[in-house]
């Protein structure tokens, strides 16, 4: 009896949490379709803010820049991360645990610290601020995610498959290309999507590393919010959140991350 009651209470609790998590996002999305520039109610449907968005060069430039940066980050982080995962899986060597532990600082240290440290360092070696600096930073933040995701997939790989291929006369690169990589491909795809999400959503590090006139989309949004926000910012925010949620749903299909083990 008490158990059933607890079960019902638990489900109510879960429902309340889902409301808490999604309600503000829904409100923001709804307000991006509201005609009033001051978020006035009653609600009056309008696509005016999306039309304005299409004419706002600053936001469009920042969006394109963010997508290009995320694309570059994805390619670089996925390639380097996959290579490192293969090596960490295939070889036993001294210092391996240290190398695995070194993946944690980029995730565990607050971005405020890594971001400001990168700013100081890039300035002192002459890279300075700007898109290259942002990409260097984003790749470093995305690498651990790629390595962890690919390694998770890799752990279900049977090394005797490689031995069998080698016994049949395949060279080591052929083994990698024809046996190992196809097996871990779902992990690589998931890692790539996570890398894209990490870069596309990254605010703190981009904030310190991007040139004032050359900012990424989240940095532009932050500046706009602090100046007093407009429904145009709602509209672009709604688009961003729709894109990143869609990406993660796709990534979850490719990895065990969201599902049952």
């Amino acid at each position, binding site marked *: 009896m008490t158990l059933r009651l*607890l*079960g019902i209470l*638990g*489900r109510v*609790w*879960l429902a309340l949490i889902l409301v*808490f*998590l*999604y309600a*503000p*996002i829904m*409100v*923001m999305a709804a*307000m991006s379709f509201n005609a009033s520039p001051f*978020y006035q109610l009653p609600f009056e449907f309008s696509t005016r803010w999306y039309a304005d968005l299409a004419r706002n060069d600053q936001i469009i430039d920042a969006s394109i820049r963010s997508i290009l940066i995320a694309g570059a980050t994805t390619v670089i982080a996925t390639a*380097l991360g996959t*290579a*490192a995962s*293969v*090596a960490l899986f295939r070889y036993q*060597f*001294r210092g391996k645990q240290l*190398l695995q532990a*070194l993946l944690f*600082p980029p995730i565990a*240290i*607050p*971005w*405020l*610290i890594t971001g*400001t*440290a*990168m*700013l*100081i*360092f*890039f300035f*002192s070696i002459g890279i300075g601020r700007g898109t290259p600096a942002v990409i260097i*930073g984003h*790749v*470093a933040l995305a*690498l651990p995610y790629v390595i962890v995701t690919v390694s998770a997939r890799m752990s279900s790989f049977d090394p005797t498959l490689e031995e069998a291929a080698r016994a049949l006369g395949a060279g*080591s690169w052929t083994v990698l290309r024809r046996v190992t990589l196809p097996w871990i491909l779902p992990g690589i795809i998931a890692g790539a999507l*996570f890398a894209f999400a990490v870069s596309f*959503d990254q*605010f*703190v590090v981009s904030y310190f590393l991007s040139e004032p006139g050359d900012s990424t989309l*989240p940095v532009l*949004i932050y500046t706009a919010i*602090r100046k007093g926000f407009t429904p145009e*910012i709602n509209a672009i*925010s709604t688009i961003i*959140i729709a894109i*990143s*949620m869609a*990406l*993660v*749903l796709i990534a*979850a299909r490719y990895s065990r991350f*969201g599902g049952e083990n």
Partner: protein
Amino acid sequence: MSGTLTRGERRRLATLLSPAYLWLTVAIFLPLSAMLFFSFASEMPGGDTAWQLTLDNYREVFASPTYLILLRKSLILASTVTLICLAVGFPCALVLAKSIRGRSREALFLLVILPFWSNSLVRIFSWAIVLRGNGVLELGLEAVLPFDIRLNLMFTTGAVIIGLVHSYLPYVILTSYLALQAIDDKLIDAARSMGASPLTILRRLLIPLSASGLIAGAVLVFVPIVGSFMEPRILGGRVGTYYGTVIEDQFVAVYNWPLGAALSFVLLAVVLVILGLAAPALRRGAA
């Protein structure tokens, strides 16, 4: 196959590993070292003014009460948000892991952790729209309640806490869920058949066995919040000055980078102490 690699293997190992780790060195480890160095500089090295090594930046951090008061304020904020996240998130994870079954559990779990991967800045911004004076929350409550209500939540510590709980709750649910899922249902059945009440099962079985997950979740919430600046800026307005916002100011407004570096390093020390204290539990959780 321990330790003895042929030369060819060693070369392949280096080819595969070095690009990733060189990148991490240039983008993470060298910058952190550079920041440690600059935190002891009197001026930003490389500029026009002469500089020398000094302890002045650290002296300023520890001599003036401002920074330590703000650090304390940030630690209190992080503790508050962490406790709320644990109190709210653990029951939710428990329901997901032990009460709901089958496909609906998978779907609900994904739904709970989905916001965790979406843009945190945008989610904080969405709270600004909900909480603002005459905003949706106030109008909604006014429509339901018979009396006039002025919440005035925007630009208060309460608003900052709500926004941060919203941002970090999924971490706690994720880690608690993974820990709870690893507990064998037979243990719970056994306890129940021997007459343990739900409260006893929770206190003597579920919480101790999922402690590593709870601690991991707490650390994942606590650490970034001590250094948060965007959330307090947007939702806290004038009361939103915290240790993180002061560091932000040194780099984007005041341009006292050496002082900012010293402040960042004090923060890093705090973070490392917390991670060090939690390390045994975290390692148990990973194993």
